[in-house]
């Protein structure tokens, strides 16, 4: 389990991480979601003992990272796929990491095979594609067979096949009972991969909980209907307490009332429905709604300046 308690990182002028507290439980994939520059990587570095928090603390299985000896046997991390010495081979890269924590050399072969890099182990890191470097980073994280895994944007640079591979890998690692924290700014990816979410914006915690709950609480369901009597039905539904938004194609978007009740209201008034359905809001909608005021730069702001 990873626990952050009031983590704060202040640089001379900016606050990168602001009083952030959350827990990452074992046995599930926890997505760490936030816009670019919201403090995800800084938080991960503080968890790993690489950056010193201005205040607050982070623990892994109840222990501060800096107090661990041979930490890679407990925690594996891939923070930056490009962090490789360009003239050192992929295999040598894994070997120095393995030796540093007395991890048997056999594991180097194991993880190279696991991430599909066995054939290119002799290649210099500078000759690897971004996707291969990303796989090598994941291999390094898996070396010590750790119970806690931390990945910063692991799918950057991967092809579709690689993305699916990472998704499956994360889920299977979680199913083995490991603690998985994976950051991303890609909401669609998190919706597919994560069970649990920690959402931050400008270094502050915005939400934490199950992905499903998060979407429901933030955006909720919408009822979508198409009717030739839309002009009568709209006001009628509003009288019953629903919020109605007419769409450009003449259909209606109804919030605050479920599909069954919309149907009852319509039939009670003798109005015809061609289509009636419920649309589940996407994680993307929920995320945008939540982070609207927390992104570093908004398109709207830029537009205002230029006009």
């Amino acid at each position, binding site marked *: 389990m990873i626990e952050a308690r009031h983590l704060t990182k202040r640089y001379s002028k900016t606050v990168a991480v602001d009083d952030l507290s959350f827990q990452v439980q074992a046995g599930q994939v926890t997505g760490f979601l936030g816009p670019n520059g919201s403090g995800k990587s800084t938080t991960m*570095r503080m968890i790993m003992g690489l950056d010193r928090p201005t205040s607050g603390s982070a623990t892994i299985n109840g222990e501060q990272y800096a107090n661990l000896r041979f930490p890679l*046997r407990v925690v594996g991390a891939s923070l930056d796929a490009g*962090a490789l*010495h360009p003239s050192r081979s992929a295999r040598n890269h894994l*070997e*120095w990491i393995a030796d*540093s924590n007395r991890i048997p050399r056999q594991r180097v072969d194991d993880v190279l095979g696991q991430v599909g890099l066995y054939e290119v182990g002799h290649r210099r890191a500078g000759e690897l594609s971004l996707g291969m470097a990303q796989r090598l980073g994941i291999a390094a994280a898996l070396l010590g067979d750790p119970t806690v895994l931390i990945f910063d944007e692991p799918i950057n640079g991967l092809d579709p096949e690689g993305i699916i591979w990472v998704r499956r890998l994360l889920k299977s690692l979680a199913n*083995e009972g490991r603690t998985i924290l994976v950051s991303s700014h890609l909401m669609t990816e998190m919706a597919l991969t994560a069970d649990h979410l920690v959402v931050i914006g400008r270094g502050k915690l915005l939400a934490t909980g199950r992905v499903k709950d998060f979407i429901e609480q933030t955006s909720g369901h919408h009822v979508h209907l198409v009717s030739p009597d839309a002009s009568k039905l709209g006001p009628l539904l509003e009288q019953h307490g629903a919020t109605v938004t007419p769409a450009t194609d003449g259909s209606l978007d109804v919030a605050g009332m479920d599909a069954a009740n919309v149907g009852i209201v319509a039939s009670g008034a003798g109005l015809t429905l061609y289509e009636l359905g419920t649309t589940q809001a996407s994680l993307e909608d929920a995320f945008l709604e939540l982070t609207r005021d927390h992104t570093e730069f908004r398109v709207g702001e830029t537009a205002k300046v230029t006009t």
Partner: protein
Amino acid sequence: MSTLVTPRADVVVWQPSWRTVFRATVSSEWIKIRSVKSTMWTLAFGAASTLGFGVLLTALEVSRWTRRSVLEVTGFDPMLYSFAGLNVAQLAFGVLGVLVMTSEYSSKTIRMTFAATPQRRLVLMAKVSTFSALIGVVSIVMCITTFFICQAILASKGAGLSIGQSGVALAVIGGAVHLMLVGIIAVGLGAAMRRTAGAIAVLFTVLLIVPGLVSLLPSPWNDDITRYLPNSAGAAMSAVVRFPNLLSPWAGFGVLALYALAMLLFASVVLVRSDA
């Protein structure tokens, strides 16, 4: 849809002894050093320049043997010519020492290094030990080889030293220890500065430019200060004849070792305080 999982019981974490952690880190550092081609090239360059300049300058001196001035004859140190190339080798090994640290920052592998071993002072000690052991071995082999070849050339004029003479073996070892200590200072400098270009600039300024500037000071300040500069302290370790601007071999060792120690202390404070 969500499968029930039993969280892995947290395995009792093996708490290895510091000795074990240190040895593992040294082994890791050794892989890092030998798996980069530039290490081999730099060591070969250092070894070739030590031998090459030693032989070249000794041979030149022998060729003008009878035309030398009185001052040159009285102040002749057979070791000085043999080990002239150490001045080049110390720059080569110094650059390598800087790179041992700064290449980790430029490639960002330093984060993996500190993630693997959060005890940063221990990492620094492991890097210093590994690197100085490597250049120590290379340097001693290269100093002994150069010594015997150059003294054989001088022997033709009857001026060669033998390893058994008083202070000679110490001077040969001193030449190697000089390079080792410069290497250690360079590793510390790299750790403190992080940037390759900056650290190399400082190293070259101290080893090459400062001595020239100090020599321009009025006497006796010039000699008094020169004696305590890193390169003079290092040169004192391999001198057989006493020069006025050089310390004794042991004092030279002491001064250079103090520089190295101070550099490492400073570097370890910087390493622990700053974000990786």
